[in-house]
């Protein structure tokens, strides 16, 4: 009887961890989009203004919303909107964007995770 209970408990624990995914806020598809956006933004940041403009559109496509709407998610208020930073209207803001966006995916996922 004791063995049966332990086996049953073990099956329940493993099944929940492996098939239910406890405490997961979003799935592989969402994470894939975040990572792709992160990669695109990093590349856009390195390449400069023209690609950064394209990155805004890419970000909209990946997340299905305007990048500015992501700001509450990342829990930060930059000196200008994310779109302005990305398009690099001012060199100082562009510099900020280049520091900021390589970590965007992490910030978004952290924010979605409730940190």
């Amino acid at each position: 009887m004791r063995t049966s209970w332990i086996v049953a408990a073990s099956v329940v624990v493993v099944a929940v961890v492996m098939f239910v995914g406890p405490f997961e806020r979003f799935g592989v598809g969402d994470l894939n989009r975040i990572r792709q956006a992160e990669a695109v933004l990093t590349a856009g940041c390195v390449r400069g203004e023209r690609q950064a403009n394209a990155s805004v559109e890419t970000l909209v496509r990946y997340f299905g919303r305007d990048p500015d709407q992501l700001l509450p998610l990342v829990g930060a208020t930059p000196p200008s909107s994310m779109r302005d930073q990305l398009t690099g209207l001012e060199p100082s803001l562009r510099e900020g964007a280049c520091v900021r966006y390589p970590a965007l995916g992490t910030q978004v996922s952290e924010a979605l995770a409730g940190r």
Partner: protein
Amino acid sequence: MSTSVANVPGVPRPGGPATADGRSWRTIAIEHIDLVCVAIFALVYIATRLAVLWRFPPYFDETFYAHEAPIALHQPGQRFISLIDDKGPLLIWLSFIPQKLGFAPLTSVRLVAQAAGLWTMVMVGLTTRLIAGRVAAAVAMGLFVVTPLWLVFTAIGFDEPLVAAAATSALYLQLRLADRPNLRDATLLGLALGAGLLTKESGKLAVILLPVSLLLVSWERPWIKRLATWVGCAALALVIGYALYSVERLSPLYYELGEIRRSLGQYTPVSTALSHIGSIYQQNWPGYRVELDHYLTPTLILAFAVGAGVLLARRTRMALVLLAWTVIPLASVVFIASRPLGHYLVPAVTPAFPVMAVGLLETYGFLSRRSGRTRWPAVVVAVVAVVPSLWFDVQFIAKPATTKLPAYDDRELITDAAAGGGWKQISEVIRQRTVGAHGPVTIAYSGIITFAVSLLLGDPEQIRYPYVSIASPAATAASFVTATGALPPACTATPPPNDIAFPPCSMIPPSRLRRLTSYQRPRGGVVVTLYAVSPP
């Protein structure tokens, strides 16, 4: 410690046609079931791995190792070249054997990974025999051979099969040492630990887990003497392992490993992982969970759960050791690896095979006791256990270049820039167009650098086919351009060398490029293109 076949519930009693000495072939086969199974499973293992050895598209990481392998072989000063990528030298060193036998570098690193898998299969069998007897050992080896995890990741020349081979050997020897400490096992354990340390950072886990085997040391009198002997043997093993690892100190690169590690960012530092445990879990676990569900299959995960429960109830200390060897490496992978890629799981979940085998045998015993029969429960358990794995295996062996892999692995290994689809076709076109060419033929690359083209052209050291960035001045002499994705705009100034912040650009004007062939990677993946460069 081992269980005889006759004691395993539900195993049919020997019988059948007799041989000259009165014993049946079946009796003899069951008496030597471990040897019979090793032979059969080894044949199946070799056949299935050979089926994909030359057919999986060359993935970026393995092409990098294969690029290093002949350099390390031919230049004694470059024996530790793998340290520039924060990898130990063992994979490259072992690849010297197949290279000397005439195999190409890429095939050589893959053969090392496959041989490591075969070694791991035997060690899984020995470990399981120690825990649950010979029938369980045969079941564990069978599961090992068919599991997609070990099929996919021995098709590629990764370090992880080698880490798993060393770790599984260390687990087996640590179990033996805890049962009966002796110098021979201590020495072999030291060699296994050293092999792991010389392969990759994850080889350290077998060292960290050494104290866990203390759970199995008997506390009956004279426990002080037994414990002292174990401590002495463990210390000897650690000294041998560290001595082997210290070979890396012969390389100047060893003293730069800290800086190399920081610049590569392949691992999350433990302090960061502990302070961001929630967000790292959110980023990595969903991917790993999907990968485990596909590579191990749900039925084997449930078999693991049953086996863990049975062992916890009946052999608690052994169960705790095996769970530690599964859970701690898995947790390390989830929290320390920077990306959730399937091959990191290979060493982490290999110690789970003995537990799965126990779970399946227990399920079989339960069904046969309930039904009063032995045959159909065996068939049911076998079918449920292996059919999902076999279904994946058949698809993968049929189409290794395009089969959909789970979670991030599909992007990483099949569809994205680091994958290898298309390079074979492109290399073939270059080969055909350069037959009889005198002097070096320069190839420029746009997008991700790949060593696959050089390897497939039989020029891993890039002497006959120099491979240069399209943004470098040397690109102006190129005859071909390989492009991953779109071509960059023409350069308006000469880019500074090695300046990754400089906007990507092409030193070859687009008007000089003529498209020869393209390959669209599956599921809307990256397009790789070959261009011919016309004279200015």
